Structures are given as C-alpha cells and as structure tokens.
C-alpha cells in the first residue's frame, strides 16, 4: 500500500483533533526552543570571547618572569624566579629574533592620579612606544609617547577613556598635567575606549607611561613582570614562541635538565583554553534543555498511548474496513513523527526568535547555531519514532473484533 496515502490518513487524523495535537506538540516545542536558545547563548558567549581575543591579536606572545604552575614553590615573594626577566632579555628578543616584530615590557602598578582637587586610583602600566601596535589600542586624541620619551624616561602619560572622563570631566586632557606620586606628568594622549572584557572588567580604567619612567620614578625597581611580543604574522607565532624560549634559555644559561625560569605563552593557546570553558558551558546549558526535550518526547508517548485507547473503536473500524495492522501501525507512527517534527519546527522558530530577543532584553550576546538546529530536527524525528513506536505497536496489535466492541 502506498505510504503517501498513510501519511495522508495520519495527517487527516491529526487535523481531526487539533487541540490535542497542539498540546502534544507543546513539550517538543518548548524543548527544541530552549535547546536552541541555550546553545545560542553559549555560542554567543564563545564568539564574544573569541572576538575579544582576536582583537588583542592572535600573533601575540606573553613572556612572563618565573616558571609556570610549579605548585607555588617558585612563585613566593622575593623569590629570584620572579626577577628572571629583564629589559635586556626583551631587547635581545627584539634584536635577535627575525620572526618577532614588536616587543614591550609591561610593568604594572596601581597609583593615585591627581588633577587639582580630583583624584583617581587606577592601573598604571609602564610600556614601550610599541605597546599600542602590539595590543591593538588606538589613540582618540593627542598621541602615544615616543621612543625618545622612553629613552629619557620622560614624565608623559597616556590616559584610558575611563580615567580621562573622571579626571578631566568635560575638558580635553591632552597637554594638561596629572600628578602621580606628587610628580607632574604631561598628558600626551587619550586612548579610544575598549569597553569591558569578557570577565566584566573595565579595560579603560588604565593609564600608560614609558616603562623607564615607571621603573625609575614611580616604582624604583627594575623588575619586569611581563613582556608582550608580537610575531610578524599569526602563522609565525609558534616559531617565534620556540625561538624566544630558546633565546631566553641561552641568556639565562640554563642547562639541558633545568626547567625554564620564565613562561612563554601565545594567545592561541589562551583562546583555546577560553573556548574550552565556553564549550563546557554550552554543553551544560544544552543538555539541561535537552532534558526538557526528552520530557517532551515522553509527553508525546503519553498522549499517543491515551489516544490509542481513546481511538480503539476508530482502529477497529479501520481494520474491519480493510486496513492491515501494518497500515494502522504506520499511521500511528507517522502521527507521532508529524507531531514531533512539526513541534520541532515551531520550536526552532521560537528558539531563533528567543535568540534574537535575548540580546535586546538581557544584553547577552547570542549566536544561533546551525548545528543546534539540525540536531534538534534529527532529535525530534528520533523522539517521534522512539516514543511513537510503542503506542503504534499497541494500536496495530488490537483485534478488530474487540476493538469494534470497545465502548
């Protein structure tokens, strides 16, 4: 018998009872919609982290003083391990490694910045003139300090947007003076705002001065905590990382069995770690929503079972009139597949709408995932088959004589 005719019979049977069909689909609709919404929240978070990381530059390397992850043994205060990185190391990297384009040390401190009767406690970083190029900062007004400023340890400062707004409300800070630890610094420029990082920290609450100035005039220390190195291209990142490691081992005169007393990491690795965290998050959200999809499937089975009992007489009529049991079984199976697939499609629509509304209402980034959509369609069809099979089997096994007598 033509399967298309059974599809038709099944659809007619569903249309005869629209209310029941709609209620049955509800579970699947909610399940699929929540899977899609949850996964798109997860993917959205992932994409925004990815974008942040890419905005820092995928060809970025971090060179950090001290060994990594040695159970805290080497990272105690006053330990020689944290003083292992020197300006000379960074200069050597800049000079000797061809795959390296730019280098800057980064010397971090917090400092009170004072302008007249206004003051602000912000992060002050000592960097080289190459810093904006490496970390992809752009200048909004004025200019970044120069190599000459670094060489002579000039008292110049470049302000992040947040600090500029707080210390110079309504006026242009460029050319004005900011006092840092009672030393006057000339503001040479203001940076363009970067907004919050993925952890919600304000990236603009920062000020930059030449590292020489910070070392000599603010901190009085030659310590370098971290150096940023920019490879000539994203593809050269790993080569650069290997060469930097090799060079630093030579310079630090480490024997073949001695561990590194510094750490070189690249942005790609960090991006991967961040991605992994977000994938776990997405998986978690998705599987919670998946449970509701499963519950929706059980709902379909429930209604189909009730429906088989309720429609016993109808089944009897169909069989008496000449429907084979296989036709009845196929009909019920198709009914549940149609229910779950239709529910699935409505769920996809709702899920997409939700994914579009969430950024507007909650401010979370979302990214509708094709994989989640395809997965939901397959899953809802599977739910229809899996949970429809038993009721269909039950309908097909009815005896027409008993079924016709059923009241």
């Amino acid at each position: 018998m033509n399967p298309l005719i059974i599809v038709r019979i099944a659809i007619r049977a569903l249309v005869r009872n629209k209310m029941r069909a709609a209620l049955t689909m509800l579970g699947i609709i909610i399940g699929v919609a929540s899977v899609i919404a949850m996964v798109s929240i997860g993917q959205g978070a992932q994409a925004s982290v990815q974008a942040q990381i890419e905005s820092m530059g995928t060809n970025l390397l971090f060179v950090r003083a001290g060994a990594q992850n040695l159970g805290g043994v080497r990272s105690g205060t006053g330990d020689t391990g944290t003083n292992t990185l020197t300006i000379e190391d960074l200069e050597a990297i800049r000079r000797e490694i061809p795959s390296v384009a730019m280098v800057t040390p980064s010397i971090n401190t917090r400092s009170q910045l004072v302008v007249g009767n206004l003051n602000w406690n912000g992060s002050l970083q000592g960097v080289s003139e190459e810093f904006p190029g490496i970390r992809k900062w752009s200048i909004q007004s004025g200019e970044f300090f120069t190599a000459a400023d670094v060489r002579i340890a000039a008292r110049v400062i470049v302000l992040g947007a947040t600090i500029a707004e707080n210390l110079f409300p309504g006026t242009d800070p460029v050319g004005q003076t900011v006092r840092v630890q009672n030393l006057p610094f000339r503001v040479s420029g203001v940076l363009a705002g970067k907004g919050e990082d993925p952890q919600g920290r304000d990236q603009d609450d920062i000020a930059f001065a030449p590292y020489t100035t910070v070392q000599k005039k603010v901190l009085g220390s030659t310590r370098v905590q971290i150096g940023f190195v920019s490879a000539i291209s994203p593809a050269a990142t790993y080569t650069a990382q290997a060469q930097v490691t090799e060079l630093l081992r030579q310079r630090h005169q480490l024997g073949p069995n001695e561990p590194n007393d510094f750490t070189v990491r690249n942005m790609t690795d960090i991006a991967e770690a961040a991605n992994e965290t977000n994938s776990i998050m997405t998986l978690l959200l998705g599987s919670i929503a998946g449970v509701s999809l499963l519950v929706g499937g059980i709902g379909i089975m429930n209604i189909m079972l009730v429906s088989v009992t309720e429609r016993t007489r109808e089944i009897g009529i169909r069989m008496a009139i000449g429907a084979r049991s296989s036709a009845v079984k196929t009909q019920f199976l198709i009914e549940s597949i149609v229910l779950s697939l239709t529910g699935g499609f409505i769920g996809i629509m709702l899920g997409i709408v939700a994914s579009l509304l969430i950024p507007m209402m909650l401010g979370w980034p979302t990214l509708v995932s094709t994989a989640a959509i395809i997965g939901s369609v397959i899953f809802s069809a599977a739910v229809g088959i899996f949970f429809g099979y038993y009721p269909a089997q039950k309908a097909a096994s009815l005896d027409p004589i008993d079924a016709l007598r059923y009241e």
Partner: protein
Amino acid sequence: MSATLTVDQQELHPNMPVFVPQREARPVIELDHIHKVYTMGDVEVHALRGISLTIREGEFIAIMGASGSGKSTMMNIVGCLDRPTRGTYILDGDNVSELSKDARADIRCQKIGFVFQGFNLLSRTSALENVELPMLYAGLDTAERHRRAGEALASVGLEGREDSHPNQLSGGQQQRVAIARSLVNDPALILADEPTGNLDSRTAIEVMEIFQRLNRERGITLILVTHEPDIAQYAKRVVIFKDGKIKKDYAIDDPRDAAEELRLLPPVEEEDDDD
C-alpha cells in the same frame, strides 16, 4: 439442514423484475462444517458446532438467533474478522479459512462491506471522507475515490450532504453513509450487523428500503444479522441459529416490501435537513 433454498420469486412478485437470483446462481459463500472453539482459561467454549451453509450471489439473507447462539461468531468468520477452528470457508471462490491476518484484511477491503449497529463512522470526518476510507486502503487514486464516493452517497439519497460530519447527521443518515461506505469497493457481499438496532421504526424501514433496492437493482448479496423478527421479514431467506448450530433455514415467499410500506406511511415533515 444446510439446504439452499433459492426460490424463484418472479411469479410471486411480478412488480420486482430487475434481479432475481437463479437456482444456478454462483455461490458467494460456502461454509463447510465450520467449528469455532474459544479457550477461556481451562474452559473450552464451542461457539460453532459444525455449520454448513451456502449463500449464492444476489441473495438477501437474515440471520437470527438469541445472544449466545453463535450468530456473532458466525458473522465474524464470514466477515473474515476471525478464523474458524475447523472447517472450510470459501468466499467468492477462494478458500479463506486459513489466511493470515494481513491477507484477511485485504479480503475485507476488497470483498466485504460492513454495516454496523452503531454506524461506526469516523467522527469529525466528512461523509465523503468516511465513504472514501475503504478506497484509501484499497489504494485508489484521488479522482477515482471522489467520483465513487459521490456516486455511493447519491445512491443512498445523500446528495449534497458530502461535507456534513456525522454529528450533523441524523441516525438514519449516518447509517446511510455507512451503507455507502460498505458499497464503494464493489464487495462480493455486504454484512449488516443489526443495522436498524439504533434506529426508530420509520428510519429502520428507510434503511431496509435501501438494502432491498441494492439487492434488487444491483444484485448485491446481503447478509443481515438481526434479532427482530419483523426486520428479518424484509429478507428473502432466514437462517436461525441456536446453540452453535443452524436450527432453521427457510425461504420467505412473500418478503415485506419496504418501499411499499414507506408509501403507505403517513408523510412526516422532513426532520433531518435543518441542522
């Protein structure tokens, strides 16, 4: 007991000329020593104890008997809803006594039309779609289904009610839809199980009129199960069951004529066309 009594009724009813079963008419149903035993727990129930019966093409036969007489079991077997425990059943030339469930479903689809006491129409489904149902299972195409269903509805006087749902139809009209449904696949026989049981007496006569007309004009073989003796009087032959056996099998020389009776009944205002 199993004698076949097909009486030439031409002399008795000169006004009924169209179809008269001949003595030599082809047998549609041949039952030979049919037994049916149900096992309920440890108890064996002999529902049928060796039934032999031949029904020829164009017959209109009423089957009577008290409940428990075996007539329902007999109808289930004749309708290929059930199989005999022993004995042979030849329907329209084919031995159907040992067919599988699916093969019997196909036989029911092609050769048997059912009319039930409770009408058994699909609810929330138009009269036309109800009538189309057996043709869906027979695999006919849409155009053919529409044409035949329309014709069948017209032949039972329901032209214009194609789109009505069962709950918009009176009992008599619903039973007529059911009769139309039983006709559409051109079955070898129509089995009517207490078709007037849920109807008032006037509507019952109307339904019997349709049966008599189908039998007379189209030569359709009809088996009518009833426990009402006066309904049985519309048939041309009566078989009475008792205790799983045929107790009586006789021809009715002068069956009631439903069309004539309807003419003589006082006309009633059409009760069923204003819903």
